[in-house]
């Protein structure tokens, strides 16, 4: 055993690597001696918040994780649900916020690469990606650079892989100016029996490293690199920017799926955060075995790399496989066919210890399970933030002067449609291949992406489908994290339901500030509580997810942003519904009813510059009933279009239905509210549905059966969007506001 750290120096290095003194003491206690440099690096990374969830783990236990569809809950690289006929869907969402804030193209690209590796590690072929993005406002050149770079990076990586990017969302708000959010979600399809685990087992089995060479990229992060005392060469301390190679990843997908198809592997894991250390220790601890790895066997990208550098490098596009020795030749032949490197770097042992050696010399030797499981679990302090009293006391109805006249309302409708938070996302999704694999039934731009289930060009196609949506309104979460998180869930479910999908399971990406600040942790805890309650009410479990803390800039945290990625299943994908108005004369229904709820609304921000008040209330039982009604209408074939009400209110929803269908609408609202509230309130649990006149009575029956409020608000037709004498604009005016708004904002106009 190489003893390369003195008892005096070791605690100092530990602190530099981000371990707290008590955590260092625990390492010493586990080892019964002073740790080596390699051991210290490995523990510091595995016990970091990013890998260990030490601040969030207890709160996350609130989530329901079981349900009828669930084949694999949290704990593996991705969750998996059954979608019928023996097909299984793996999915997960993950953040890549900080790298993207520094280098948006590569940060976003490697975010996509990482989440897609999580999917095919499970044995599933990646079939679709979504992304959930947050930036500061586009009047700032830096924000335009970050946004354009991130979109190009997502496209550059996903397009090359041939995995369609089918949906997502983006918001622009000052709260994200110093800390953009890049959340990437990926879904993969497999036969249920192909479900694979990232588990190492069978002493004597071989550990095979597949894919790229290992370099110094991504080691530890720039701020925590070893100090001069431990490093002879200054040039070793380079910035930790990971660079993606989507071509290598495409080859990895094909090779790994072929290895699994041929049943050549015992276990498969991907190398993500904390590199080999994380992947190997998690695989070993799941299997209750030990590993013996020789770093001199690892193909290196650079010279004179130290053992700890090999163990914590985050070089991209690498996979770790465990296999029986008899299959080695066949497995290496598959890798070679795809032009991939594959190297035996160690063996599985029965000792339960993770041993790292450099040739003959042991440089680390610790109980494997302690890396993955023995990180301290914290109970962070919580305090309700003081700002909440102030914002929640604000009454948006009396607190600002609302407009009343026709002329101004037209302008506000058009301004809302041109808001970067509402306008057409075409500029984004035209840079993404959203069709490859030929399963994209509903193109981007609707409520949810709808995908057909089947193995295009390789095997069976089915009539089944899935609807997918990601959602989170950070303003609502800022104004009330409990309700805001529930609305994120409800809106994602509503989007899925409007497309004809039955909500089945969610993944989440929980983006928050520094959890060591009691005010921030309180918002985190409340959001988890809200999300958990919503999941329980709907019977929809959380099957995977990711926590991203420390999203702060200039000392202030981002809006709490618990992004929800919802998957709904459809037995017959041909029954899917879209937002577009379909026929002249169709009857327009509003399911649910509008209240005067403009706190946290896009209208309040846009017209009055205010982010305050209480977010819209959410009644989960009403929400369920409204969704049940729309699903029944779609199943019965009487819903010709369905679109949920969200940012911008009913006016924006109706305008979007008009533009998508190239048809106008004549609307009469009899809700007894002032015009601004009728049009722009963001009351939840509302869906605009159209039917043929002869089917209207049947929709009424469904609404009554589900005991929900509803109203007939108008008819489809003409080339104008008109609301009584309050709003009257042409389709051309709507399009001129909505279509080019993002391009205009990016041009600095």
């Amino acid at each position, binding site marked *: 055993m190489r003893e390369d750290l003195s008892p005096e120096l070791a605690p100092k290095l530990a602190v530099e690597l981000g371990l707290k003194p008590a955590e260092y003491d625990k390492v010493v206690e586990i080892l019964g001696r002073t740790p080596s440099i390699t051991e210290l690096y490995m523990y510091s990374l595995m016990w970091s918040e990013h890998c260990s969830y030490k601040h969030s783990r207890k709160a996350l236990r609130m989530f329901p994780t079981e349900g009828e569809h669930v084949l694999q809950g949290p704990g593996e690289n991705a969750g998996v649900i059954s979608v019928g006929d023996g097909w299984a869907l793996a999915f997960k969402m993950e953040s890549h916020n900080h790298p993207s804030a520094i280098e948006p193209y590569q940060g976003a690209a490697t975010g996509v690469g990482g989440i897609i590796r999580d999917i095919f590690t499970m044995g599933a072929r990646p079939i679709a990606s979504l992304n959930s993005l947050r930036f500061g406002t586009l009047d700032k050149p830096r924000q335009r650079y970050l946004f354009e770079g991130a979109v*190009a990076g997502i*496209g*550059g990586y996903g*397009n*090359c*892989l*041939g995995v369609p990017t089918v949906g997502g969302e983006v918001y622009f708000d000052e709260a994200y100016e110093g800390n953009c959010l890049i959340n990437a979600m990926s879904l993969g399809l497999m036969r249920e029996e192909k479900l694979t685990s990232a588990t190492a087992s069978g002493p004597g089995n071989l550990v095979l490293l597949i894919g790229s060479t290992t370099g110094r990229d991504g080691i530890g992060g720039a701020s925590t690199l070893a100090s001069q005392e431990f490093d002879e060469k200054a040039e070793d301390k380079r910035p930790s920017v990971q660079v993606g*190679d*989507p*071509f*290598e990843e*495409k*080859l990895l997908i094909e090779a790994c799926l072929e290895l699994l198809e041929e049943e050549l592997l015992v276990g498969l894991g991907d190398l993500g955060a904390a590199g080999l250390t994380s992947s190997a220790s998690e695989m070993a601890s799941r299997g209750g075995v030990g590993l013996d790895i020789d770093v001199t066997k690892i193909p290196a990208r650079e010279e004179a790399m130290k053992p700890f550098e090999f163990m914590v490098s985050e070089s991209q596009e690498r996979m770790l496989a465990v296999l029986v020795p008899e299959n080695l030749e066949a497995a290496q032949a598959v890798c070679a*066919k*795809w*032009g991939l490197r594959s190297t035996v770097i160690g063996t599985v042992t029965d000792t339960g210890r993770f041993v790292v050696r450099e040739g003959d010399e042991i440089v680390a030797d610790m109980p494997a399970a302690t890396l993955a499981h023995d990180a301290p679990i914290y109970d962070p302090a919580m305090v309700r933030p003081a700002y909440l009293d102030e914002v929640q006391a604000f009454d948006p109805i009396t607190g600002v002067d609302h407009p009343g006249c026709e002329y101004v309302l037209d302008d506000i409708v058009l301004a809302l449609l041109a808001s970067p938070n509402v306008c057409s996302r075409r500029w984004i*999704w*035209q*840079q*993404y*291949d*959203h*069709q*490859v*694999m*030929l*399963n*994209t*039934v509903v193109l981007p731009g609707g409520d949810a992406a709808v995908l*057909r289930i089947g193995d*295009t*060009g*390789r095997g069976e*196609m089915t009539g089944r489908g899935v609807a997918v949506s990601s959602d989170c309104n950070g303003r609502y979460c800022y104004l009330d994290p409990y309700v805001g998180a529930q609305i994120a869930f409800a809106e994602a479910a509503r989007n899925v339901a409007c497309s004809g999908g039955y909500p089945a399971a969610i993944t989440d990406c929980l983006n928050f500030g520094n959890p060591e600040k009691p005010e921030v942790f309180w918002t985190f805890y409340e959001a988890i509580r809200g999300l958990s309650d919503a999941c329980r009410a709907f019977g929809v479990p959380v099957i995977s997810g990711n926590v991203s803390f420390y999203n702060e800039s200039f000392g202030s945290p981002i809006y709490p942003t618990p992004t929800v990625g919802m998957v709904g299943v459809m037995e017959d*994908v*041909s029954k899917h519904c879209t937002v577009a108005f379909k026929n002249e004369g169709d009857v327009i229904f509003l399911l649910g009813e509008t209240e005067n709820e403009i706190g946290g609304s896009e209208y309040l921000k846009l017209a009055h510059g205010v982010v305050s008040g209480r977010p819209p209330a959410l009644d989960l039982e009403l929400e369920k009933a409204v969704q049940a009604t729309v699903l029944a209408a779609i199943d019965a074939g009487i819903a010709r279009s369905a679109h949920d009400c969200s940012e911008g209110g009913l006016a924006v929803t109706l305008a979007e239905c008009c533009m998508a269908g190239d048809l106008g609408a004549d609307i009469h609202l009899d809700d007894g509210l002032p015009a601004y509230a009728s049009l722009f309130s963001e009351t939840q649990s509302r869906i605009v549905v159209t039917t043929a006149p002869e089917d209207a009575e049947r929709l009424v029956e469904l609404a009554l059966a589900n005991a929900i409020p509803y109203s007939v608000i108008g008819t489809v037709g003409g080339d104008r969007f008109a609301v009584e004498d309050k709003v009257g604009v042409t389709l051309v005016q709507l399009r001129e506001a909505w279509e080019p708004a993002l391009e205009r904002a990016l041009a600095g106009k």
Partner: protein
Amino acid sequence: MRFGVVIFPGSNCEQDVVHAAHVLGHEADYVWHGDTDLAGFDAIVLPGGFSYGDYIRCGAVARFSPVMAEVVRFAERGAPVIGICNGFQILAEAHLLPGALLRNQGLKFICKEITVTVEKSACQWMDATPGSLLRLPINHNEGNYICDPETLARMEANGQIVLRYCESDGSRAEGGSAPNGALDDIAGICNERGNVFGLMPHPERVVDPATGHTDGAVVFASIARRLAEVG
């Protein structure tokens, strides 16, 4: 008929072409780029994707794959070959088709549906009435077709220009209707003999009614009719 769909490392539309062929009632099988046996195939498809990561230049590495020598012989024999998107780029690199494909004028990847006009051409893969319009998806970063004036004149004279980008009503905008800046709005060309066809749009994406309209079917149907006629 039976299509052979070549898989290069980095191809990603091969399964789409096979699916489209199946939907239209044809047979299709994959051909690994390292193989050199094209026996049993009536037509060869070089599908879209990012062969060899598009490194160096799109298609520049793929043209040296072992299968390509055989594809060249196949084409020289007069047998039908089609290159879609990256496949078109490979055909241009392999000199089976004239010209080259540069980066899109706007320097952005473009994925959207566009309209093309069917030109009067010698192309065996396109028997739609000249002047008819097709809605086809494009999905590329390098589709900006270019060639020298003599080549353009020769292609025009020989009926080698098969598809031109146009506005949705069939007109051509004064400054050009190509979304990528392509010379003379060129979206697809063939060789003099008409058996080798390269195009940037993806006809295989619009064949299956389950996912939309079927304007792309005519490409596969044309070559099937042609082969049935000549036996």
